[in-house]
């Protein structure tokens, strides 16, 4: 297993390098001059020229890229051209929030999407199936921020059950724990009050973000279950009187989620993209809004770092997906 992971990780490296090259070139095509952003609102041309020299922005592209790579190798992504703060530190501070959000969304998406998919498949071509098909497509199609605002209006304003925005109530300070993940840290510090508060804050953003993924998961699960139901072993299991519930939810489902799990890798990418909007509306302090800010200010260092980060997460999720598949399917485990 360790060898398998090592192999996958090594295989990912060239892709990541390619990703960096592509992004670097792309960003350099943007005419927005980072030096202008660096110099600030009221700068003179001389100031801008000085900054350009100071940051090596007048050097040939290749030199700049080389210097950048050397930095990346040391996990130094340079300083943001917009804020002057080290990018690595900012990302380290924000990434846990985004991961917490996306994982929660994924959990909701899978937790609801899989059962819904199963129910639809079991009622193939009857009304629960039609309903689910329409709803799941609707889930993919709904504009996230419109949904977000509607949820805010209902649950935060009208009913007042959940907080409107943010990651934690103003009165509470994050425990500042070892992992950076708020939920985990509060648990590690035994601060159940913070944990509860953080969970309440997590609900609306995670639900909003999960909707698209939920629909996709439900859809793939439905297809998978329909497919599995045609298999001979299902007939056999029925013929020897497996109790129906157990058969569907354990024996059939496990065979059906293979396609769903492989989709989760692709889904994760779109979840992170969706996080941009969701984080903005719920003021979630993650990397989504950080990225938009970077794009609006043409902050090359941040864009590069985020691209690399997304690439790494994407690769990691794919490796995890493979591991999950290996756990589900013994034949994969044996390398067939």
């Amino acid at each position: 297993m360790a060898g398998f992971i090592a192999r996958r990780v090594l295989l990912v490296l060239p892709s990541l390098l390619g990703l960096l090259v592509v992004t670097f070139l792309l960003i350099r095509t943007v005419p927005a001059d980072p030096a202008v952003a660096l110099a600030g609102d009221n700068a003179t041309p001389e100031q801008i020229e000085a900054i350009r020299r100071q940051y090596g922005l007048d050097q040939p592209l290749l030199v700049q890229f080389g210097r950048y790579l050397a930095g990346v190798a040391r996990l130094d992504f340079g300083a943001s051209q917009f804020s002057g703060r080290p990018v690595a530190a900012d990302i380290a501070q924000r990434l846990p929030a985004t991961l917490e959000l996306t994982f929660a969304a994924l959990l909701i998406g899978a937790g609801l999407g899989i059962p819904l998919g199963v129910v639809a498949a079991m009622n193939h071509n009857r009304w629960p199936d039609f309903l689910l098909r329409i709803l799941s497509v609707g889930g993919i199609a709904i504009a996230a921020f419109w949904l977000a605002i509607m949820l805010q209006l209902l649950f935060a304003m009208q009913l007042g059950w959940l907080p409107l925005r943010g990651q934690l109530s103003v009165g509470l300070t994050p425990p500042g724990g070892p992992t950076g993940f708020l939920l985990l840290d509060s648990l590690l510090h035994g601060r159940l009050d913070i944990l509860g508060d953080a969970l309440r804050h997590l609900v609306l953003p995670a639900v909003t973000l999960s909707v698209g993924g939920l629909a996709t998961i439900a859809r793939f699960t439905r297809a998978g279950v329909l497919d599995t139901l045609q298999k001979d072993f299902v007939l056999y299991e029925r013929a020897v009187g497996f109790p129906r519930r157990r058969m569907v939810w354990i024996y059939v489902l496990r065979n059906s989620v293979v396609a769903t799990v492989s989709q989760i890798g692709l889904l994760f990418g779109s979840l992170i993209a969706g996080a941009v909007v969701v984080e903005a509306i719920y003021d979630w302090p993650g990397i989504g809004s950080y990225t938009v800010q970077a794009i609006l200010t043409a902050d090359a260092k941040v864009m590069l770092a985020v691209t690399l980060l997304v690439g790494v997460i994407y690769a990691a999720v794919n490796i995890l997906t493979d591991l999950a598949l290996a756990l589900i399917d013994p034949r994969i485990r044996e390398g067939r």
Partner: protein
Amino acid sequence: ATPGVLVRSDSPPANLDPHQLFDVPMMGYALNAYDGLYRYENNPPELQPWLAEGHTASADGLEWEFRLRPEVRFHDGAPLTAEDVVYSFRRVLALGKAPASAFLGILKPENVTAPDARTVRFRLERAYGPFLAAIPIVAIVNSRLVRANEKDGDHGAAWLAGNEAGSGAYAFVPGSLTTLERLDMARFEGHFLGWSDNPSPVPRIAVRAAKETSTGVLGLLNGSIDWTDSYLPTDQVEQIQGSRVAQVAKDVSMRTFIIRMNNARAPFTSLNLRKAMAHAFNYDGFIQEILKGYADRNAGPIPNQLWGAPKDAPGYAYDLDKARHFLKLAQAEGFNPRQQIRIHIQSQLEQTNQAAQLFQSDLQSIGVNLRIVADTWANIVSATAKPETSPDMWIHWVSTYFVDPENWVGQMYDSRFHGTWKASSFYRNEKVDALLQRARGLVAQAERAPLYEEATRQVMADCADIWVYNTVELRGLARRLSGYRFCPAGGGAEMRWLQMKG
């Protein structure tokens, strides 16, 4: 509403170093965490002694001496001395970032000195009228603290970007910062002004950026936000005013809304065309209907209420007949009305979009083809470095960086500033250049005002740009707050005066 904590939904600055940044979020932070030698207070703004008790200037305007208050202490308890002031100014000049622009050509670092512990002396390269007006820009930092955290000759830039070394009324709470998202501040008991004038000051401030207008408004309405930024969309005002927990503070600011034209490149080299455009914008419609009246028509570049603005200068009025007339003249000069004119908007700022669409709609009726290009600030600013790349037209505001006509007409229409976004009309008129040059070299306001007025009249006659309005800033405030004071410099972000119930 959280007891004892004021929640602000405006954005914290991108970093915490007041010598690196100079923008609205930074003002919102620095005016509370730091002090300057002087400070603008009230509306219209008055320059008041702050850390300095007063100053003297030599007759030629080159030598300035500031006398510091005694007994000022930084947040760490260290006394504030002239040494700190000297360090701060030299640091600003050495970093060369935004706040330095007002001083770069006129002040050398070695010419800021401290003859004694309470005196700071500046020797300028040449006389510079706006010097005093720019003094409040520079926040005074705790030189020992910053020096202790310098690394590789960075003047402590890395450290101060995430920490604080000020003496202001509120102190940054260490560890509470997430860039652009949140930061906490706690009241500094030992502030040099004392708190006797404020019976119930805000004990703690939590800045929690609300990125979406709707979230901010909802937060204000359900009491989880006490204070929004001051750019509330006018369409939201009514609803907030009707609420039991919040209200809107409306203050005339000094922030002019301008539609720029690239005077250096066809077709806007034609004065007639520029005039045709200026007559085609529906100023009243925009201000009354879209902004619901929350703005004042400002016919020239300088905010109406500031000295140097010619009170009697006639502006351009919405008059499509006149516009057609000038358009014909322009056509006679060779303007082809089928030519597409591109106006760049900042897609993040809905008002620039609305103005452009309104304009487009009117221009269409007189036969001018306006195309709207969505763009970002970073790009536009880069593009304005040269007249060839600078857009035909674009829309923006000019805020109060320092309270002086120089901030508007001086830096916008003197050809020496070509290449900066503020001068992106690439307007060139030797007479105006000369007038502005002279005004800059004088110290006394009475002498400078007529020069700026004359320059402004000329710029307006040349119809360099389309000047639309002067902003009324709209800030959502929880009703539990009182004592809000607005000043156009800093946009009312100073919180020392606020009183909070509960």
